[in-house]
């Protein structure tokens, strides 16, 4: 059940007017050597809802903005002496000239013992793909609405995208409360609508906060306009929200990034523990054949570790030489990933052109890149009704379901089981551009036969050496260039191509 924050403020009312953010100020000025957490906050809403003003307010009231920046902003006060804090989130010249916002901007500030990363995604143009991009990084999302208009279609769409991308904590900032004269009745009605809405999704925290960003009411400073509101201010909420569950208790996953060698004696696997943990002496499963190895050493430049946990970037040395390379995911034999050749996935189409199934596609999962042998759209998600309507095509910004087959098995998880290794992007084999992102709903070890399955083709180094790369060393740049050129021509003709480098 979603719990709209009703926690009463410990300080009661005495804080209402005087020294609004003194406690925060002290904490920021101290600039501790060590911050305890990085919290990534996605802001979604449109310019009309006052998004730039809200972010500007957070920076202005809660962060350690440089004096020179404050001086610049202070030059733009309105008739009431309120500085236009939205100027703090000013974008590119190209954007100002064209009156548009080009995708997401990243902003950083420290308050208390936390680093906040504000991921600002534009509200209107292309918002589905930008929101999806931002949401993939977010621990919490602030959904901004105009108090005069309440929960709208757009709010529902935003919630659906957040849910799809795995955001579990949301805050509804009901802005421009001053324009409805801080009406408790109206706020409570919006709050009820919101609670009803969030019940349809997998959110674990959902709070509604009445704010007026222009003057900073209930952003970083408790408003004296709403004595009926006993909940947290926006910054209080943010200071307590947990970051995305860094799943130390989830099954162990270690996507291999590269092989590290040192002389003849050392061969290690570099990577970052995606989830779970691993100890020296433990046994790990290497691939779909079920082969296992023991961890001999966990190496870092700061000395060997006994245990590596989610988030640690390390080099693992195994107890013998095994055939493991980039793209593999090490796991514990009791809870291995799925070695799948066929996936059912939810995707967001990011490209500006519609899906063309004749194009060569590659799928990037963790550290692996694999040719796609077939992709068929099965349904399109209606973000308002959340109905999955049968469909066969997909257009820019569409959210859809598809069946995907790969030319060889890939190590993957269901997003709902292990989100870190349950997501992927689709890459255009020819141009290299990122076309779509997706989360795995189901994964199967066998290829589901599909009539449109694309023929696949494996180029071997030996073949290349005999033909187009005759006389070239297989490690030379020219060899690489020619091999890739051949692969691209074949891929653009609709074949899925793999180059075997052994």
């Amino acid at each position, binding site marked *: 059940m979603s719990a709209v924050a009703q926690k009463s403020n410990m300080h009661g009312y005495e804080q209402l007017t005087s020294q609004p953010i003194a406690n925060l100020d002290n904490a920021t000025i101290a600039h501790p050597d060590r911050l305890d957490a990085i919290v990534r906050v996605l802001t979604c809403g449109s310019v009309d809802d006052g998004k730039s003003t809200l972010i500007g307010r957070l920076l202005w009231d809660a962060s350690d903005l440089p004096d020179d920046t404050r001086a610049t902003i202070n030059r733009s006060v309105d008739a009431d002496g309120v500085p236009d804090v939205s100027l703090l989130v000013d974008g590119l*010249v190209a954007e100002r000239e064209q009156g548009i916002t080009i995708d997401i901007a990243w902003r*950083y500030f420290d308050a208390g013992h936390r680093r906040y990363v504000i991921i600002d995604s534009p509200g209107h143009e292309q918002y589905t793909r930008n929101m999806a991009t931002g949401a993939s990084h977010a621990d919490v999302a602030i959904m901004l609405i105009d108090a005069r208009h309440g929960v709208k279609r757009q709010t529902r769409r935003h919630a659906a995208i957040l849910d799809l991308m795995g955001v579990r904590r949301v805050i509804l900032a009901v802005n421009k409360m001053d324009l409805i004269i801080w009406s408790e009745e109206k706020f409570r009605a919006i709050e009820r609508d919101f609670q009803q809405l969030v019940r349809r999704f997998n959110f674990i925290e959902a709070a509604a906060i009445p704010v007026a960003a222009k003057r900073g009411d209930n952003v970083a400073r408790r408003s004296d306009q709403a004595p009926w509101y006993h909940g947290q201010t926006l910054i209080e909420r943010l200071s307590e929200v947990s970051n995305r569950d860094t799943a130390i208790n989830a099954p162990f996953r270690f996507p291999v990034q*590269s092989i*590290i060698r*040192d002389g003849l004696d050392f061969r290690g696997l570099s990577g970052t523990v995606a989830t779970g943990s691993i100890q020296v002496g433990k046994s790990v499963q290497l691939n779909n054949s079920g082969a296992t190895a023991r961890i001999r050493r966990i190496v870092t430049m700061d000395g060997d570790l006994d245990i590596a946990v989610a*988030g640690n*970037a390390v080099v693992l040395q195994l107890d013998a030489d095994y055939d493991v390379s980039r793209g593999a995911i090490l796991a514990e034999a009791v809870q291995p990933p799925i070695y799948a050749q066929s996936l059912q996935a939810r995707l967001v189409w990011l490209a500006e052109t519609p899906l063309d199934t004749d194009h060569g596609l590659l799928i990037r999962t963790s*550290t692996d890149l694999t040719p796609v042998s077939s992709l068929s759209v099965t349904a399109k998600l209606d973000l308002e009704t959340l109905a999955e309507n049968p469909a066969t095509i997909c257009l820019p910004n569409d959210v859809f379901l598809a069946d995907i087959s790969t030319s060889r098995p890939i190590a993957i998880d269901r997003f709902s089981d292990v989100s870190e290794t349950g997501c992927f992007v689709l890459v255009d084999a020819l141009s290299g551009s990122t076309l779509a*992102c997706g989360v795995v709903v189901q994964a199967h070890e066998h290829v589901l036969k599909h009539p449109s399955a694309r023929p696949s083709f494996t180029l071997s180094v030996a073949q290349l050496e005999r033909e187009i790369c005759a006389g070239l060393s297989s490690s030379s740049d020219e060899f690489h260039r020619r091999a890739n050129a051949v692969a691209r021509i074949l891929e653009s003709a609709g074949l899925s191509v793999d180059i075997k480098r052994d």
Partner: protein
Amino acid sequence: MTKSFSHLDALEAESIYIFREAAAQFSKSVLLYSIGKDSTVLLHLARKAFFPQKPPFPLLHVDTGWKFRDMIEFRDKTVRDLGLDLIVHRNEDGAARGIDPVSYAPSLYTDVMKTQGLKQALERYGFNGAIGGARRDEEASRAKERIFSFRSANHRWDARKQRSEMWNLLNGRLGTGETVRIFPLSNWTERDVWRYVRRERLAVVPLYMAAERPTILRNGQLLMLDDGRLPLQPGERVVNRKIRFRTLGCWPLTAAVESESEDLESVVTETLAATTSERQGRLIDHDQTGAMERKKQEGYF
């Protein structure tokens, strides 16, 4: 026993991950080494990423001929001590034409000696992945930058053509003629860089620490005279002042601040408490609004 991650641990791990992705995905990478504190942190992270192996790419310094002498000395000692490969490239054509920061506008000088110089070097050696120390907190156009930043065949940056980066999946597949700039420090702030310098006890160029140095006051900015190449204007007097630098670049374009912080510890304390942004000392950014955005479009890293 598991100790909880501090934000620096998380940033360090993220940077190491990015370095390893870059090395795995690009056939010819190079680390853009500009000697300052960000480069120092970048290089340290590169060493951590590939340990016990050495970083699998050379360092590239685009030398304008106007770097502080202390910087060049520090650069040479660093690569010697660590046994790394260093490529020093200078735009000889620009140097022959006498393009210097004294007689030319900062924007033109930077374009010729830095941007063009960088492009020349990348092309001469055929690098397709150039790793740099840019941070998103530096400036508005940097705030929209990707970790893998794609550049067209003529090295141009187009904000509208950047690839979406989802979760931690980095797509480095190159299109024809494309190259990539890679930014492992994307999510670091200036304060993080200093916190990390202190935590890891990294050596930095002595110019970051306060000492008596010959200076002039010009347009309200303190400039240090590193040699005799900058002619004095009427009324200017060389005065020894106790100064240090928050950011290092070409010496006639980099302003100093007066400071008593003589050791790293007090520099870090002073920086953490600073109330002005570091790029205030970078005269090239003040040229015009959107200066960085324009420089990036033209191929500046």
